[in-house]
C-alpha cells in the first residue's frame, strides 16, 4: 500500500510561530518522499485542534502522521489517542519537538527554523519504519504468597485476604509470631509482645481466606506478576505443595550481629554479658529464669551497663530501633529491681519522630545514667565487670557493672540470600533486600509483583513493619484485581533466536529480571510481562540480537541520519 504521510505543524499560539519560520518549514518538507501534505494549525492540542486533526487524517486516508509541536512529555499521548480515534495505529505517528527543543532554546530564529526542519525531516524519515504494535493482555491470579510469619507477614496477610483473594502464609518454624512474640514488653506502650501476637494470630487464623503453612519452606518460585508458580516443602509432613499466586511478599525479618566478632565486649567469655535478645528472653515468664532478671550466680544484678551500637561501625549503618528498646530495658529493669543502677554507653541518641523523646525523658527520670562513648571495652574484674569508655574529644573513664547488655546491630536474616537468588531481586550491599526505588517505591522490589517488607529490607520498628505490610497490600490491591487482565507495555524488548549467542550479557543488565536463559535452546528469552522497555539489553547486546520495539536500530538510524544531514 502506498504510504501517505500527513505533516501537521503546530504554531502553539506564538510560542513556536514567533521563532520558527513555519512557511519555510512547509516549503522545505512538502516535497519530501511520501509526504501527502503539510498543514499548520494555531493550537493542535486544543479541542478544535484535535477535531481538525482527526477529520483531516480520515479525509485524506493517511497511513502515517507526523506532528511538529511540543515535547512528547506534554502531548504525545494526546495525539496518539487522536490517531487511534481516526483509525491509525498510534505507533504510526511521530512527534517532532519543535517547541522545547527549537523555539524555546535559542533567541536566533534562523537556527530555530533550521533545527525544526531537521527534526521534522527526521520524523518523516522514521515514521514509515514504525511498526504498528498491538496492546496485549494477560490473565492474572489475585492470590498472594507471604513468606515469613512474623508481625509484618501476619499483618500483610490480614489486610490482603478476602473472599476474592486467598493468602498463603509460609513460615519456616513451627509457630507464627516471629521475634515479637518473644518480647515481654514493647515500646512505647510497655504491653506484652506475646499477648499482641496471640491476638493477631487468633485474628489471622479466624480468616478462612488465609492458609497458614508452618514448618514449611519455599523451595522455588517461577513466573511473573500475576502468574507465579510456587513450590513449598512441608517439612513436618515431608510433602511438596504447588501453589499459584499473583504476587509474593517477603517478610523474612532480621537477625542480630554476632558480638563474638568483637572480643572487646567479652561476649561468650564473661558470664554476665548478654545480647538484647537474651535479655528479652530472661524477661518472659516462660523463659529460663521464669521472667526474673538474674545473674549467672542466681542473684539479681545491682548494676547494669547497656552498650549501644555494637557492630554499627562494622555494618556502617544505624539500626534505628536500638536506642528505643534499650530505653524499654531501663523500664523493665527499674520495675523489677527499683534500686538497680543502669548506665548507657552510647554515641548518639536516635529517637526520631513525634513521640519518642517523651518516652526518653520519662525513662531518664527513673534515674538512668547516659555516658557518651565511642570506644567501649568490657573486662572481668573478679567480682563483676569493668567498662572502659572513651568519648570525643578526649574524655576517658570507667565504670563497674555486674551485668552487661549488648545492643547489637540488626542484620538481614539467613534466608535473604536464598530468596534474592530465587526471585532475582538485588541486595543492597548491606545484605538486605533492595527495593525498586528507595524513596518513591519503598516496598516493591525491582521484580514486578514481588514486595519486600519489614526488617527484610532494613531495620524497622514494629509500627514501621506493619505500615510497610499495609503498603504492600495497598500496591497489590491497587494493581492485581480479581477479574481484571494486565495490560502490557507495547514497547518491549525482543531477542532474536537466530542472532542470540547465549552470552547472557542482557540478563546482567536487565533491572527488572525480565530476561531468563533457556537452557535447552541456549538463548536469552524476554518476558514481556516484566519488560519495561528500558532498552538496556538492546544497548548491551554484543551480537545485535536484543531489540527494543519502536526503538530499533533501523528506526533510530532513519531518524538520526536526517538530523545530522
Amino acid at each position, binding site marked *: 500500500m502506498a504510504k501517505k504521510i500527513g505533516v501537521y505543524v503546530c504554531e502553539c499560539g506564538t510560542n513556536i510561530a514567533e521563532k520558527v519560520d513555519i512557511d519555510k518549514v512547509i516549503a522545505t518538507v512538502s516535497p519530501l518522499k511520501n509526504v501527502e501534505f503539510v498543514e499548520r494549525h494555531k493550537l493542535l*492540542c486544543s479541542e478544535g485542534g484535535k477535531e481538525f486533526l482527526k477529520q483531516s487524517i480520515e479525509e485524506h486516508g493517511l497511513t502515517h502522521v507526523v506532528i511538529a509541536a511540543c515535547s512528547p512529555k506534554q502531548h504525545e499521548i494526546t495525539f496518539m489517542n487522536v490517531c487511534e480515534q481516526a483509525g491509525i495505529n498510534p505507533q504510526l505517528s511521530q512527534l517532532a519537538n519543535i517547541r522545547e527543543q527549537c523555539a524555546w532554546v535559542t533567541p536566533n530564529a534562523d537556527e530555530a527554523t533550521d533545527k525544526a526542519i531537521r527534526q521534522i525531516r527526521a520524523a518523516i524519515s522514521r515514521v514509515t519504519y514504525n511498526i504498528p504494535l498491538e496492546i496485549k493482555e494477560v490473565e492474572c491470579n489475585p492470590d498472594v504468597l507471604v513468606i515469613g510469619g512474623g508481625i509484618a507477614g501476619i499483618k500483610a496477610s490480614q489486610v490482603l485476604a478476602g473472599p476474592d483473594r486467598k493468602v498463603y502464609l509460609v513460615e519456616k518454624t513451627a509457630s507464627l509470631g516471629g521475634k515479637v512474640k518473644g518480647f515481654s514488653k514493647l515500646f512505647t506502650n510497655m504491653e506484652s509482645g506475646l499477648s499482641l501476637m496471640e491476638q493477631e494470630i487468633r485474628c489471622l487464623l479466624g480468616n478462612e481466606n488465609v492458609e497458614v503453612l508452618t514448618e514449611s519452606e519455599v523451595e522455588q518460585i517461577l513466573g511473573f506478576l500475576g502468574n507465579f508458580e510456587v513450590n513449598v516443602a512441608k517439612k513436618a509432613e515431608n510433602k511438596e505443595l504447588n501453589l499459584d499466586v499473583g504476587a509474593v511478599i517477603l517478610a523474612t525479618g532480621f537477625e542480630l550481629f554476632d558480638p563474638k566478632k568483637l572480643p572487646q565486649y567479652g561476649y561468650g567469655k564473661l558470664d554476665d554479658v548478654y545480647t538484647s535478645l537474651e535479655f528479652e528472653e530472661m524477661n518472659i515468664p516462660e523463659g529460663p529464669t521464669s521472667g526474673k532478671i538474674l545473674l549467672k550466680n542466681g542473684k539479681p544484678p545491682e548494676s547494669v551497663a547497656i552498650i549501644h551500637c555494637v557492630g554499627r561501625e562494622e555494618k556502617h549503618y544505624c539500626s534505628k530501633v536500638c536506642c528505643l528498646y534499650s530505653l524499654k530495658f531501663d523500664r523493665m529493669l527499674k520495675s523489677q529491681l527499683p534500686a538497680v543502677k543502669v548506665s548507657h554507653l552510647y554515641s548518639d541518641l536516635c529517637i526520631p519522630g513525634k513521640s519518642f523523646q517523651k518516652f526518653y525523658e520519662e525513662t531518664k527520670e527513673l534515674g538512668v545514667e547516659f555516658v557518651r562513648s565511642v570506644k567501649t571495652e568490657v573486662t572481668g574484674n573478679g567480682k563483676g565487670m569493668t567498662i572502659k569508655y572513651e568519648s570525643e574529644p578526649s574524655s576517658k573513664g570507667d565504670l563497674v557493672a555486674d551485668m552487661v547488655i549488648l545492643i547489637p546491630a540488626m542484620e538481614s536474616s539467613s534466608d535473604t540470600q536464598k530468596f534474592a537468588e530465587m526471585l532475582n531481586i538485588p541486595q543492597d550491599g548491606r545484605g538486605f533486600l533492595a527495593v525498586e526505588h528507595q524513596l518513591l517505591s519503598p516496598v516493591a522490589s525491582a521484580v514486578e509483583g514481588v514486595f519486600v517488607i519489614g526488617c527484610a529490607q532494613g531495620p524497622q520498628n514494629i509500627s514501621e513493619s506493619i505500615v510497610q505490610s499495609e503498603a504492600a497490600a495497598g500496591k497489590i490491591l491497587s494493581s492485581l484485581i480479581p477479574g481484571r487482565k494486565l495490560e502490557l507495555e507495547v514497547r518491549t524488548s525482543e531477542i532474536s533466536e537466530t542472532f542470540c549467542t547465549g552470552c547472557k550479557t542482557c540478563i546482567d543488565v536487565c533491572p527488572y529480571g525480565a530476561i531468563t536463559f533457556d537452557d535447552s535452546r541456549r538463548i536469552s528469552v524476554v518476558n514481556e510481562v516484566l519488560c519495561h522497555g528500558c532498552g538496556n539489553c538492546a544497548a548491551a547486546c554484543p551480537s545485535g540480537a536484543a531489540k527494543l520495539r519502536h526503538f530499533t536500530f533501523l528506526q533510530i538510524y532513519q531518524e538520526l541520519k536526517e538530523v545530522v544531514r
Partner: protein
Amino acid sequence: MNNEEQNTPVLVIGAGIGGIEASLLLANSGRKVYLVEKTSYIGGNVIKFEEVFPNMDCATCMIAPKQQELLANENIELLRLSEVEAVQGSIGDFTVKVRKKAGYVDLENCIGCSACFEPCPVEVDNEFEERLSKRKAIYIPCPGALPNVPVIDTENCLRFKGQDCQACQEACMFEAIDYTQQDEELELKVGAIVVATGFKSFDLGKSTQYGYNKFNDVYSAMEIERICASNGPTEGQILVKSGEPPKSVAIIHCVGREEKGYCSSVCCMASLKLSHFLKKKLPEVKITQFYSDLCIPGKAYQKFYEEVKESGVYFIRATVTEISQSGKELSIKYKAEDGKENTLNAEMVILNPALEPAADSSKLAEMLNIPQSKDGFFSEKEPDLTSVATAQDGIFIAGCAQGPKDIAETVVEAEATAGRILSLSR
C-alpha cells in the same frame, strides 16, 4: 470486613508526595478520587528541593512522572485552590463541603506559555521562594510547577482592587483568562478520607538567640533549599547578601527541638545534604555543623554521613547559645556538653528548624473529629502498631500530617492508607 464502604469515591486532602501516591493507588484500582489541594500546584514541599537524600536524586525530575500520571488519570479529580470546609457522616458515607477558589485562568485553554506574566504591573514576594524573589499577581510558583497553569492572586491584582487593568488578558493569545470566574462550593460524597496535609517549619522568629530576621546572612534551611535550586531565585548560585559566595558556613541543627519536645527525624540528613550540596558547588567552603545527637536511622544514611564527613565537614557537639554580627561575619557562641564555651565565626548561618504540622491542622482535625497530639499532629489510633489509622473509621493519615517523616516513610504510609481503604470494600 465492613460492607458499608463499597467502591465509594475517596477524598484525599493534600497533593504533596503522600497525597499523590495515595491517589494514584486508589485511582488505579478503579476508585474515583477527589484530590483537594490548597495551593495552585501539586508536589507539596518535595518540589522545593533541588536534590533529596540519600542518593541526591533531583527531586522535581524524580516526581515528575508521578505528577504527569496523576494529571492524566481519569479517575482523579484534582481540585486545586480548594479547601475542605465541612465533613459530615461516617465511613462509607461522608459528605464533604469543599470551597474551590476561582483561579481566573481556564485550564483547557491555557497552554502554560507564561506570556501573561510580563505585562502584569504588580510585583510581590513569592511565598514559594521563601520570599527571596518576586512574582507577579498572575503567576505560577516556580518554573516547572504543575499544573502549568497560572492563577490570579486577587489580593494583589489591580483589577480585583478596583482598577482598570487587563494587561494579562490582553497578552493571552488563547482567551484563557476569565475575570468572571466564581468560587465554587462543591459537595462531595465519599466513603473514605486520606489526610496528607504535610508540614511547615518551626517559626524561627521565636528563637531570638539565633538572630534570624535580624542578621542578613542567617537563613532557614528551606531558604537554602531554594537558593540551591536551579529553578530558584538565584538559579542555584549560593551567595550571601553581599553578593559573594560564602567562605564559611555554620549549620545549626535542632532549632526549636527543645520548645517542641521531639526530634524531627529528618533534619540531620537534611543538614548533611545541604553540606554535600554546598561542598559540591563551593569546594573551598568551610562547613561546621552544630548538633547534639546525630539521628541518621536506618540502613541507608550512615554511608552518606561518612562521605560528607570525609569531604571535610566539621561536626561540633554543642548548643549554640547566641549569634551576633561581628563585622562581615557572624559570630556563633556555643557551649559543649562539658560546659566549655567557645566562639566560631562564619559568613553564613543555616538554621535547621523543627517540623510542625501544616497550618490549619486544628481546624481540619475538628471537622474530621480526629484527635491531635499536643503539638498538633494528627493522632493515630494505635500508636505502636500502625500510624495510618485514626480514631474515626474510614479516615486515614499519611506523612508529616501524623509526625515528622522523610519521603520514603511518607510514601510507605500513603501506600498503606490505600491498602487499608481497598481492604475495607469487601
